[in-house]
């Protein structure tokens, strides 16, 4: 008996397709600094799916294999011309132009993954490529990562237009086929069902689920009073005297947040410290100074220190972190009325929004605007 329906897409191909869509959308939506930990998870899943797709292009069922859908360029061109005139023939698997689109999308995806890993490693100092290059390179990787993501988005746009046109032309829903795996039989083509390969699909899902759970284990297992910090920065110097004396009225700002000359000025002007008289004796001041200058921003141990330091003109000696142009730029979107809210209390109160301010890290993913008790709205 000849069935009118034919299984064209095996399960792993479908899991790949919708998994790639979801991880791309998730990474796009979670691109803000504060979601970096989840953005990176989406990125790893995206990368893993693409690598799997390369393997499945060699080992998968008929329509999943590159050899079945990568046609010579002229053929793809011919197809596009026919499609433009509304006369494109129906293909059970990918059409000749679609085949190239798959290759292009997969390559863009791989490049996005690699530039993402480079950005994570060089700019943030995390992931497998942590610190492989000087921080100077970070901007380049970051910009290419973004440009490639936009390029892929526009390719996805073209892909959607093509899918829509082809669906209309042949009166069948291609998106539905990618969900169910089935398409209408075509007498001119191969008429066998492809293997479903359910076990491979299950393994694929299992690996991704397992990895996600492992990645998020900190949120699930963390207990204790301190909030969970998904990223740990480098070990920074600590000093009990500094914490005691400079942590009495506000957070003991880590010395890595301002350059040496700023700390010198602050300590020299201690009798007029933002109209407070610190009244510290000379011995205490010199011990504080000795600690501050060894941990100063010029050492650029963290991303924050590097960027703050680079944003200060050599002729300037800021006495506030909050007056440096990097700081101002990073916080320019925060509305003025938020600063005066009682559970924030001012720009200087880094701890209100940065869970790792005390450690001096200021990692992405450790910042959040605290809820407004009154109406529970999140301004950002």
């Amino acid at each position, binding site marked *: 008996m000849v069935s009118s329906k034919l299984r064209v897409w095996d399960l792993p191909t479908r899991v790949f397709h919708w998994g790639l869509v979801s991880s791309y959308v998730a990474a796009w939506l979670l691109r803000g600094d504060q979601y970096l930990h989840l953005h990176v998870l989406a990125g790893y899943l995206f990368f893993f799916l693409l690598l799997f797709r390369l393997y499945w292009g060699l080992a998968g069922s008929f329509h999943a294999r590159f050899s079945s859908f990568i046609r010579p360029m002229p053929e793809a061109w011919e197809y596009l011309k026919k499609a433009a005139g509304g006369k494109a023939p129906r293909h059970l698997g990918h059409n000749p132009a679609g085949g190239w689109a798959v290759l292009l999308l997969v390559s863009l995806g791989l490049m996005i993954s690699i530039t993402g890993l480079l950005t994570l490693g060089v700019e943030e100092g995390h992931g497998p490529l942590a610190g492989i290059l000087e921080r100077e390179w970070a901007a380049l990787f970051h910009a290419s990562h973004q440009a490639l993501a936009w390029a892929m988005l526009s390719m996805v746009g073209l892909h959607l237009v093509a899918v829509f046109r082809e669906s209309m032309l042949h009166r069948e829903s291609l998106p539905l086929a990618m969900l169910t795996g089935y398409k209408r039989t075509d007498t001119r083509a191969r008429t066998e069902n492809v293997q479903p390969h359910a076990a491979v699909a299950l393994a694929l899902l299992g690996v991704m689920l397992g990895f996600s759970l492992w990645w998020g284990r900190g949120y699930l297992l963390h207990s204790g009073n301190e909030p969970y910090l998904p990223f740990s920065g480098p070990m920074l110097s600590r000093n009990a005297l500094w914490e005691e004396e400079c942590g009495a009225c506000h957070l003991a700002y880590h010395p890595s947040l301002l350059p040496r000359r700023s700390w010198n000025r602050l300590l020299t002007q201690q009798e007029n410290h933002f109209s407070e*008289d610190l*009244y510290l004796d000379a011995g205490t001041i010199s011990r504080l100074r000795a600690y501050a200058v060894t941990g100063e921003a010029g050492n650029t141990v963290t991303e924050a220190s590097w960027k703050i330091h680079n944003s200060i003109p050599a002729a300037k000696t800021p006495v506030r972190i909050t007056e440096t142009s990097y700081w101002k730029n990073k916080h320019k979107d925060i509305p003025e009325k938020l600063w005066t809210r*009682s559970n924030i209390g001012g720009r200087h109160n880094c701890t209100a929004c940065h869970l790792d301010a005390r450690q001096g890290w200021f990692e992405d993913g450790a910042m959040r605007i605290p809820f407004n008790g009154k109406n529970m709205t999140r301004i950002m």
Partner: protein
Amino acid sequence: MAIKVNRRMMSAIFLVGISCGLIVTAQASAVQELLAEYGKEGAGKYNAVNGENLWKRVQVDAKTGQKRSCVTCHTNDLRKPGKHARTGKLIKPMAPSVNADRLTDKKKIEKWFHRNCKWTLGRICTPQEKADILAYLANQ
């Protein structure tokens, strides 16, 4: 077994007793020594009621027009945590009866008198004022 536990309890009680005693003495000695020093600097007999009045007295800052007093940061109830009026940072309770670390270090007390009098009153406090406030605080 029972004897052992008892012994342990005994030594625990003993240790707790000793440490309480030490803290109380540290406090008493820091406060007593400072009071004596203020006396030498010209303060007369200290008066806790004057201290309380000064603590609660509202002063208008000449430059900003803000109303300031010691209560601004330390709150009206010395047994409760306060909040730094300028930075929002929590300040542990001032009353030695709930915060045994209070008033145990002469240098620290002097440092904060200097800072806080200057900010609140716009000038440093006289030895008499410091003696009165200290007498008031030590009894809380």
